[in-house]
């Protein structure tokens, strides 16, 4: 497979490991903030290959994991409405709300369909004119532009029965919150590759300078991750704190301007609740007033009581890299993939799920 196999080349991997081992010996903590990185690291067994002094920590990079219980509950209430077809990416299906999940609701007769792209959801709306189709807009800046594009298309095509429940999150504010937090010590960030395809390298400059932390934008194949670790270690050794792009075949310094323009036309930043962080200023996306007819939050007024985080659940601390899954008393004993308590266990990219599945 082109542009994949060469980044899994065993010879190159050995070469990079060799060079990593030869760098200075002090312990470092590197945080990856992208769930796809969490999975790649686990699936390939990369921790095994690195010297023990290099610790890879998983941060709040799974947009599904950081979606608070209230928003899942909102989606579930919508799904229970009679004439609503709820369209969602597969990632959300098993996430637990306060009482139930979308998967269980589907089992009770709610019309919930899995789609691969926002366009599929729009097609559903066109094929089912007598129903309301609500699409769950989840994801970071990688996904938001695609949903913005579909909303714009819906307007052009005069589709009246299509709305989006926006649960989108913006990543850089969470990174700042992480670094500002006194409890956390991070020596370097492995920055998300595809989010950066959209936002470019600029948003990380402030973090690198203000907090004196090197940031390297990484691809997802084993060679990408290891090369990134190498680049971070080199910066740490030289006492540098700058932003570098490892994933140069897919990320340009200015990012994707067209995607951002579409995103900014349809969405605007708003304060948003992140599981484990509470409310972060200007860290989510809501649909602008000018596109209100596509906002499910506006079309369906749902008020829900404030949901409690489940007792004993350490998702919040895990998302901030403070503890690891085995430190949580619920992990494996009560909280398992078939009976997840918190979202970290549900999402295939959640730290706890990855740990449960892959850690030997």
């Amino acid at each position, binding site marked *: 497979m082109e542009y994949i196999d060469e980044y899994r080349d065993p010879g*190159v991997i050995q070469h990079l490991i060799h060079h990593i081992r030869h760098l200075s010996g002090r312990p470092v903590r590197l945080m990856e903030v992208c769930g796809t990185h969490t999975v790649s690291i686990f699936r390939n067994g990369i921790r095994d290959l690195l010297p023990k002094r290099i610790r890879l920590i998983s941060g709040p990079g*799974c947009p599904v994991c950081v979606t608070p219980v209230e928003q899942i509950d909102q989606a579930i209430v919508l799904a229970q409405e009679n004439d609503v077809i709820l369209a969602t990416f597969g990632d959300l299906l098993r996430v637990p709300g306060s009482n139930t999940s979308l998967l269980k609701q589907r089992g009770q007769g709610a019309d919930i369909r899995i789609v691969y*792209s926002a366009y599929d959801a729009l097609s559903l709306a066109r094929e089912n004119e007598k129903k309301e189709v609500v699409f769950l807009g989840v994801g970071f800046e*990688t*996904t938001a532009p*695609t949903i913005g594009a579909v909303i714009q298309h819906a307007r052009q095509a005069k589709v009246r029965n299509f709305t989006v429940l926006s649960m989108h999150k913006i990543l850089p504010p969470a990174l700042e919150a992480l670094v500002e937090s006194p409890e956390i010590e991070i020596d370097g960030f492995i920055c998300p590759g595809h989010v950066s395809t959209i936002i470019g390298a600029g948003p990380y400059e402030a973090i690198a300078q203000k907090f004196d932390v090197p940031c390297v934008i990484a691809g997802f194949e084993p060679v990408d991750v290891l090369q990134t670790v190498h680049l971070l270690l080199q910066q740490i050794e030289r006492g540098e704190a700058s932003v570098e792009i490892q994933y140069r075949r897919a990320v340009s310094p200015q990012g*994707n301007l067209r995607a951002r323009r*579409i995103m900014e036309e349809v969405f605007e930043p708003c304060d948003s609740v992140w599981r484990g962080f509470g409310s972060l200023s200007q860290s989510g996306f809501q649909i602008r007033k000018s596109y209100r007819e596509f906002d499910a939050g506006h079309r369906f007024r749902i008020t829900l009581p404030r949901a409690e985080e489940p007792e004993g659940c350490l998702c919040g601390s895990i998302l901030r890299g403070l503890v690891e899954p085995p430190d949580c008393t619920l992990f494996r004993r009560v909280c398992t993939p078939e009976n997840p308590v918190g979202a970290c266990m549900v999402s295939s990219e959640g730290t706890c799920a990855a740990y449960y599945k892959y850690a030997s």
Partner: protein
Amino acid sequence: MCLGIPMCIQEIDGNVATAVLGGTTRRIHLDVLDEAVGIGDHVIVHAGFAIHKISEEEARETLNLFREAGVLSVDLEREGHGIH
């Protein structure tokens, strides 16, 4: 976040293209791409949309480092490969 797959454009019809990876083809949307693409170009595909045209040059530079170090085992010269 997030899953993004490198695919090669085979056909273009307005805002929609057919793209292929390893013999598997799929319809993808070009609405959020910031540069023009043609047949034979490679793109990163996320959630059914192309989000970036892969820079062949950048990819080549990255891999040249390894080729020069003599550690690249994968044969890059096979037919149809994007890197020459």
